[in-house]
């Protein structure tokens, strides 16, 4: 009998080999499922983690915070999410760009979904962990480019000192601030001429 005759086996094989981390926890944070992606990145094989407490296996996990996330899913039957922008990673895995990356660890997005039983109550929580390193790297480059652009538009190209545009913008901001707080402020302007002989 081939794999196509057993849809259950097919689904299991896909879960095992999907390029995303998938694991399932019961109410006591014991691992019920641990796919190959998790095994390869954590160095802990499925057989070694099944039935064991996740926080004992990974003492470095921030327990109060992560258990709260898991608890919300059990209590509300809701989805929950963890974004790399707020928490760079759940598990400190190596990323898949060891040569071209220039970052120290994998950035991760995670989704927690309730696995409901026949009664409609969540009996386990499935965590799907997605590598967001590429997005994080691009975002980092974008922020750096924006910062450089903002800086260069405020400076004179030849001397590198702040230009008139920057001065005017700053004056406007200070004027508005003084207006908001009812302050008075003074502006001192001096002209320096530096001539190289």
């Amino acid at each position, binding site marked *: 009998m081939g794999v196509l005759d057993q849809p259950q086996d097919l689904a299991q094989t896909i879960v095992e080999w999907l390029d995303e981390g998938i694991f399932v926890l019961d109410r006591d944070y014991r691992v019920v499922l641990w796919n190959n992606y998790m095994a390869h990145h954590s160095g802990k094989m499925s057989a070694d983690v099944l039935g064991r407490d996740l926080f004992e296996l990974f003492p470095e996990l921030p327990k*109060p915070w992560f258990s*709260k996330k898991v608890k*919300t899913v059990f209590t*509300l*039957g*809701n*989805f*929950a*999410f963890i*974004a790399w*922008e*707020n*928490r760079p990673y759940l598990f400190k895995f190596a990323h898949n760009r060891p040569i071209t990356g220039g970052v120290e660890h994998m950035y991760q*997005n995670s*989704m927690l*979904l309730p696995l409901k039983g026949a009664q*409609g109550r969540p009996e386990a929580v499935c965590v799907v962990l997605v590598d967001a390193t590429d997005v994080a790297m691009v975002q980092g480059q974008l922020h750096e480019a924006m910062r450089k652009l903002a800086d260069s538009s405020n400076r004179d190209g030849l001397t590198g000192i702040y230009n008139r545009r920057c001065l005017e913008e700053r004056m406007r901001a200070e004027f508005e601030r003084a207006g908001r707080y009812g302050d008075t402020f003074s502006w001192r302007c001096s002209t320096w001429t530096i001539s190289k002989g």
Partner: protein
Amino acid sequence: MSAVRQSFRGDLRGEVIVIFCGPGTGILADLMGYEGELGAGGEAELLLDVANVLSGACLGGLLEQIRAITGSREADLSFSMPSVMARHVLPGQLIEPTRLTWTHSLLLEVNFTLKSRNFVAHLVMLMPEEGIQKLAGVVDDFITSF
């Protein structure tokens, strides 16, 4: 004000926007069980968490009603990761009308107020025309059942 958006798909399709008004999210931190000082990342996470819980509850409730009326347990929804739309902006700056690609949408609004905490949030569900066929069918069935 700050806003978080999240999309949902399944028997209903659309986006939820949760708009937070008022002084800030610090007042919610202890409610959600966050300890210590919230950094910038922590504050954003709090906004996302609260928005996710509110939108999950509202759409979950809507889904329950659909299930009750149709008598089917099949109806389901899945959510995408919420993201911060805007932080500390004026209401007019939230959506730029000229950049919208749609003209009609079903709007459902739910308002939340926690009087003891000076917390106000508006939850706005927006569903495009093709995203509400299921809902329209259910409402039709419900009306004809009287």
